[in-house]
């Protein structure tokens, strides 16, 4: 079975993780721009980070047969450094029209400060200008209030909920998010937030429409195989194949596909990684020269 992990910070992961993900059936991933654990102090750090999301990390993933996409945005924590945040806002447009950028994100609240709200609103307006979906990070503290307020702001701006994924949901937020017509994503964490047992219960209760499973794996304790593992658990617990496909593959494709940058053909037509593929754009191989082929299992 094929999986999409629509939220994973792979820059922080190892090649062992990439191998395991490919083996488990993960065909495409979305890496949202976020906080690196250490606060950045210059706009140049953001510029290079965004460049790596559309450059080297994309190549690194391709070596394992995984298609890498990203979202670009100013995260909520670093929005609180207002002077820096203003400089970052100036460089965002350089990246938003690049290939494989499927949304603005992850943006939202952390402390629910004034600065966070200001840059959330400015970036939501950018999403309209660039006609891109939005990936919303909901706060870990004061989650319910923060989630509701984020949705109020989005709806006040007249942005269609069908273009917005509200991420890091839990049992307390899911009902309202789905009721208002947003996509509800769930981050499966090994210890905190949403465990995969709880995820199974949510799918049993709310079904699979607009429900999305992701790992949000990063440099913290997290599991890059969260999506395939949750799918397996769903299957064991008797959830239908259709619901598994929607929550672990198809819904992510539909919502981020609205960017025009996230197409099934990108990976369904991809052969196992080898030089023939890499050479396609350059046609290095002439006159029957045989390429080197690295089969990655």
């Amino acid at each position: 079975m094929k999986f999409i992990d629509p939220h994973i910070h792979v820059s922080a992961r190892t090649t062992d993780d990439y191998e395991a993900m490919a083996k488990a059936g993960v065909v495409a991933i979305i890496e949202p721009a976020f906080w690196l654990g250490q606060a950045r102090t210059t706009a140049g750090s953001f510029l290079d980070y965004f460049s790596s999301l559309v450059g080297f990390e994309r190549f690194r993933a391709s070596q394992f047969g995984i298609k890498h996409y990203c979202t670009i945005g100013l995260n909520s924590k670093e929005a609180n450094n207002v002077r820096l945040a203003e400089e970052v806002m100036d460089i965002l447009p350089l990246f938003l029209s690049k290939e494989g950028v499927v949304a603005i994100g992850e943006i939202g609240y952390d402390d629910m400060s004034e600065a966070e709200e200001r840059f959330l609103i400015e970036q939501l307006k950018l999403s309209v200008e660039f006609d891109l979906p939005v990936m919303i990070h909901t706060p870990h503290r004061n989650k319910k209030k923060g989630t509701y307020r984020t949705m109020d702001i989005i709806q006040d701006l007249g942005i269609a909920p069908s273009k917005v994924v509200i991420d890091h949901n839990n049992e307390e937020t899911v009902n309202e998010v789905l009721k208002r017509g947003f996509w509800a994503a769930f981050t499966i964490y090994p210890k905190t937030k949403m465990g995969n047992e709880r995820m199974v219960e949510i799918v049993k209760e709310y079904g699979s429409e607009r429900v999305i499973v992701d790992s949000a794996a990063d440099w913290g304790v997290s599991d890059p195989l969260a999506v395939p593992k949750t799918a397996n658990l769903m299957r064991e617990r008797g959830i239908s194949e259709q619901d598994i496909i929607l929550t672990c593959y198809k819904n992510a494709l539909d919502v981020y596909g609205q960017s025009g940058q996230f197409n099934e053909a990108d990976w369904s037509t991809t052969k196992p990684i080898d030089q023939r593929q890499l050479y396609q754009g350059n046609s290095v191989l002439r006159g029957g020269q045989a390429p080197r082929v690295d089969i990655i299992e």
Partner: protein
Amino acid sequence: MLFLHHFRKQPAHLESPWIPAVTSTSPVMNFLETQLESHLQASAPAAWDWLSSQKSATSAKFKTAFSLAPRRIARTPWSLDVKTLTAASQLNPAWQPETWSLDQASRTLMLLWHAQNVSPEEFESDLALLFQTGEIRELVCLYQTLPFLPHPVAYLHHAEEGIRTNMQPVFTALAHHNTYPADQLEENFFNQLVLKSIFMGLSILSIYHLGERANPALTAMLCDFARERTAAHRMIPVELWYPVSLSMTNQSRDLLHTFAQTHDPMTQRAARLALNPGTTLEDWQSLSDDYWKSM
């Protein structure tokens, strides 16, 4: 900068002085404009309208359009007939436009238009930003376009950065079927490009004018590499003996005589080719085919 050529070492084996090819920008621009107009008009007139509206774009509009191109123009290849391909190779001997896609060819055309529209300073600064923030396919296009830009020596530092990249498609765009490295790079950078190509597991016969730029320093590097591989009981890529054979030193000759007697059959064959003055590029290509098939 402009006099850099005079300080470069000439390949020792060449009788006539090595003169870098000169590719003029305008004929390439006209070629791309004609071809893209006919291809896009036939398949996607709206794409041609969009592209032609970029012809006199401002810097800001140009940079956005460069990124946007694949959203407006198909990423599909184009088919060019033999007559057109012959014309292309007369414009630039390494160019293989038939391996480009419509959107990438359009990006190159936009770069050439822009180089014409703005001052050299403004162009260099825009190009630097594109390199700095480049997505993989954007970087591929930038490196493929380097030989067609006016004042190509102004972009040496970008090419040198391209040698350092580990993104294989990006490296390949610079190293293979591109006249820029042989025409512009100083010896040490050219040699690094050859060795890096080998390290990345790529063919080096696709490096334009590899034979013309063979030099004793490269020979020494390649012989050291062959010894390392031998010590590690790993195969030696046979192609590396081609540039060695064109810039032979006493040391490389000794090594080849040893390898011709006591190495794996593929290396023995390569060593004999390298030691034979009658060996042609076709002989090397044929050996290379057998080598890649055996991998």
